């Protein structure tokens, strides 16, 4: 039952992304300055948004675990962090490919790019740390604390690097942003679609953690018998 719901969400998300792809590729005109390559944006920006939301949920559930000591919160933190790392990777890779054309370089140490990379390193470190601890409650406790440290580090990293020149364009969705309305709509349309895909990942991962706990208790029964 639950598995079919997850599959349904995943199919819905992927279908929506494909549908958006049709709009993006065939209906929107090329960008006046950049040409067709700007279409990477329709994955790039929603991927960052999704990763950002996942990171917030991961922080919330880590704090939730420390307060309640309920391993379900820990599973949520793990599942959302994994999804966040997947989407951070998409953001970094698509951004780099886009930058190769529109800036002429793969990478530059500007504020946004550097903080994004540090974010990726921090959360990847979190996932690596988890693999090194066997005992579930110890793992949950230690990784929850690390999650809080990682989250606190992000704004500090951001400010530390902001004092160098920034190459990445500022916000284009709000304020004095100059993005065309139809393009903006396409970015916003792709966001919930990618969020659905992310939700399917998270739900599947959560289910796996539950099954793992069941496996652990069965193992104990087998060994005890």
């Amino acid at each position, binding site marked *: 039952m639950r598995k079919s719901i997850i599959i349904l969400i995943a199919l819905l998300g992927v279908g929506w992304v494909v549908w958006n792809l049709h709009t993006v590729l065939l209906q929107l005109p090329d960008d006046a300055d950049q040409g067709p390559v700007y279409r990477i944006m329709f994955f790039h920006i929603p991927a960052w948004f999704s990763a950002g939301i996942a990171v917030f949920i991961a922080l919330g559930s880590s704090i939730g675990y420390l307060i309640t000591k309920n391993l379900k919160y820990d599973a949520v933190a793990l599942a959302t962090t994994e999804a966040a790392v997947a989407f951070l990777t998409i953001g970094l890779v698509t951004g780099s490919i886009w930058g190769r054309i529109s800036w002429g370089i793969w990478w530059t140490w500007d504020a946004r790019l550097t903080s994004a990379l540090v974010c990726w390193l921090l959360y990847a470190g979190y996932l690596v740390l988890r693999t090194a601890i066997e005992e579930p409650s110890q793992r949950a406790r230690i990784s929850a604390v690390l999650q809080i440290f990682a989250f606190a580090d992000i704004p500090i990293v951001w400010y530390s690097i902001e004092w160098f020149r920034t190459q990445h364009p500022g916000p284009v969705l709000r304020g004095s942003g100059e993005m065309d309305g139809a393009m903006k709509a396409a970015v916003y349309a792709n966001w919930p679609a990618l969020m659905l895909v992310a939700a399917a990942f998270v739900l599947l991962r959560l289910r796996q953690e539950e099954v793992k706990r069941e496996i652990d208790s*069965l193992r104990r029964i087998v060994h005890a*018998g």
Partner: protein
Amino acid sequence: MDQRNIEFMFYGLASAWVILGVYALTLLTRERKIDAELKRLRGLVENREETK
């Protein structure tokens, strides 16, 4: 210039799909492994209860 531009748009979009696909694949292989392990353990526990 234009040819490269379109090429890189393709690379960008494809890389996003590839990363999603790779992550989905790791999830699915883990799923298969976990399910097999669960089935095996359940079988063990049932066997033991029958012999008792």
